């Protein structure tokens, strides 16, 4: 059992709370760096996706997990990032500039989507973002001379300072570097006053505004940062698959992105990574399990059922997600034998309508 004695205020916002964390995160980083030499090419390809989805998960986690705003339209930002990257690369813009543009343009779209968020709450916000997703998808389909419509767009491999990132390993290191950068940026953001303001808004809008937090400003900021991260993820995604078309950015995709956050554990950056890994591994696991089941069961249907069951199961049995499960296990051993079942109990409340007649 570890006690952390706090002797100064700055300890509260330290990047690493104690030496153990430095060791374990260092080990993780070393393993991540060595991964291309440890795993096969196929696993490496899956790791690309995990990293890309982790970046998107970070964006969504900031919005859903830390600011408490619901979005069912993040595939629209993913699409914005992907198409911006595709168009700029087509125009011969260097990678880092086009990536920045993808992030900035997604952020701009995020501000536009965030505008209704200033007036809408809960369900209405979910529906507004979802309407937005469908409109963006339709715009991409119809604006053929720019986006290529349903026939999609092809992307070339990334070129940085004249060096082509054609191989799996080099692309992996690019994804890894961007993931780590995004993660550090978010950690820094979250321990700054801005990040604290987000959390305050999540916990109670009324008390946040009483504390002098400008709700409209911070919600818009949250939406735009979240969209920018998703845009970066989108740009990498576009390069990863090499071909983008509107049907990759549907509402279903948006829901899958939200699932990353839910399965990983709402309100923790670890959760975004764990959730991303889970979502990527799930179809593989189902494909393997399919071999043991009768032939007549269609793959798509099975995937849909398993996906639904996992989503429902997590919400009912493990509302804090994978990371929450890990926390529980750790706490169990940390305080052994004094762990109580009520430690992580969810608070329930009697429902009360905010509608007035």
């Amino acid at each position, binding site marked *: 059992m570890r006690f952390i004695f706090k002797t100064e205020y700055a300890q509260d916002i330290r990047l690493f709370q104690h030496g153990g964390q430095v060791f374990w995160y260092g080990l993780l980083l070393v393993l991540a760096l060595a991964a291309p030499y440890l795993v096969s090419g196929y696993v490496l390809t899956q790791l690309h996706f995990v990293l890309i989805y982790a970046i998107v998960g970070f964006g969504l986690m900031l919005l859903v997990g830390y600011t408490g705003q619901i979005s069912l339209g993040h595939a629209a930002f993913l699409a914005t990032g992907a198409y911006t990257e595709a168009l700029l690369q087509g125009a011969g813009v260097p990678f880092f500039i086009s990536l920045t543009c993808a992030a900035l343009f997604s952020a701009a779209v995020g501000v536009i989507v965030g505008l209704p968020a200033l007036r809408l709450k809960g369900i209405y916000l979910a529906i507004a973002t979802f309407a937005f997703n469908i409109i963006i998808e339709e715009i991409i389909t119809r604006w053929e001379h720019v986006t290529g419509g349903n026939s999609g767009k092809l992307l070339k491999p990334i070129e940085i300072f004249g060096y082509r990132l054609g191989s799996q390993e080099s692309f992996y290191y690019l994804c890894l570097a961007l993931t780590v950068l995004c993660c550090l940026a978010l950690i820094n953001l979250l321990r700054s006053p801005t990040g604290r303001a987000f959390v305050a808004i999540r916990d109670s809008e009324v008390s946040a505004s009483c504390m002098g937090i400008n709700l409209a400003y911070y919600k818009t900021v949250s939406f735009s940062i979240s969209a920018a991260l998703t845009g970066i993820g989108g740009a990498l995604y576009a390069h990863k698959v090499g071909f983008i078309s509107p049907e990759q950015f549907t509402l279903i995709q948006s829901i899958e992105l939200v699932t990353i956050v839910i399965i990983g554990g709402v309100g923790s950056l670890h959760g975004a990574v764990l959730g991303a890994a889970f979502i990527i591994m799930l179809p593989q696991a189902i494909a393997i399990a399919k071999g043991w089941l009768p032939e007549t069961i269609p793959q798509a249907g099975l995937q849909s*059922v398993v996906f639904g069951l996992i989503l429902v199961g997590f919400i*009912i049995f493990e509302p804090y997600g994978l990371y929450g499960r890990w926390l529980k296990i750790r706490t169990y051993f940390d305080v052994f034998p004094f762990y109580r079942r009520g430690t992580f109990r969810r608070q329930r409340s009697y429902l009360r309508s905010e509608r007035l007649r």
Partner: protein
Amino acid sequence: MFSQFLQLFLAGVAQGCVYALVALGFVLIYKATETVNFAQGDLMMLGAFVALTASTILGWPYWATILFAVIVMAAVGMLIERIVIRPVLGLPTFTVVMITIGIGYILRGVVTMVPGWGTETYALKTPFGDSVLRFGGAVLAIEQLATIALTAALCLVLYLFFRYAKLGVAMQATSQNQLAAYYMGIPVRRVNMLIWGLAAAVAAFGGILLAPIAFVHSNMGFIGLKAFPAAVVGGFGSVPGAVVGGLIIGVVEALSGFYLPEGFKDIAAYVVVLVVLLFMPSGIFGETARKKV
């Protein structure tokens, strides 16, 4: 010119009635539990498949089919509430929304696995036939008229139910303040279960009415996505609002499909909902919301 407009308008109304029926399901659950059931469209799909089974495999007449589907779906709805929704009672709204999204996935997947249903497309036979009615130069299929009439009747019944029936009033009380409802002796859990049964039954009804217009297949539930805008435009939580919203969306869609360039038909509903949300954040018939600390 005018008759063409009338023709489009009436087709829009018929389509809007189906949206209204799905939207009614949303509104019922929202009214009683303050959550939105994203699986409503999929419940409708399941209802249509149940009706299809009764009609083609068992060979029952149309009216028996409707009754059968409605009863079966009411049971399914109550079962879903009992197994999945009740454990998360009292948790934040978004949790329940994600659960219903999960239920939607499960239902869509299960339907493709059932032998005889699968991923095929089916047509449901109706007794209305292909006859048409001429009305001021416009041509209207009897099927569409029947859809409109049945929707109107169902809405009236539901409106009266919430206005006058003891259970309906209890449902509204549950939604407005659960704790107070408990104190008044309302069995909140049982009321929730009944409301899910009712919403699923309405969904089955919607599925049967939609079947002649569209076809029965495992993805027909996605029409539920069009019904959201309907429920929002009318103001969630208002039965007349759902109907008006559904009609607005249906008519706007039909007209924009004809008068505006290609592509607008599919997004018309969502543009309308965004505009309405910008100017009237709680919809046309919505009650004003005020947060108390």
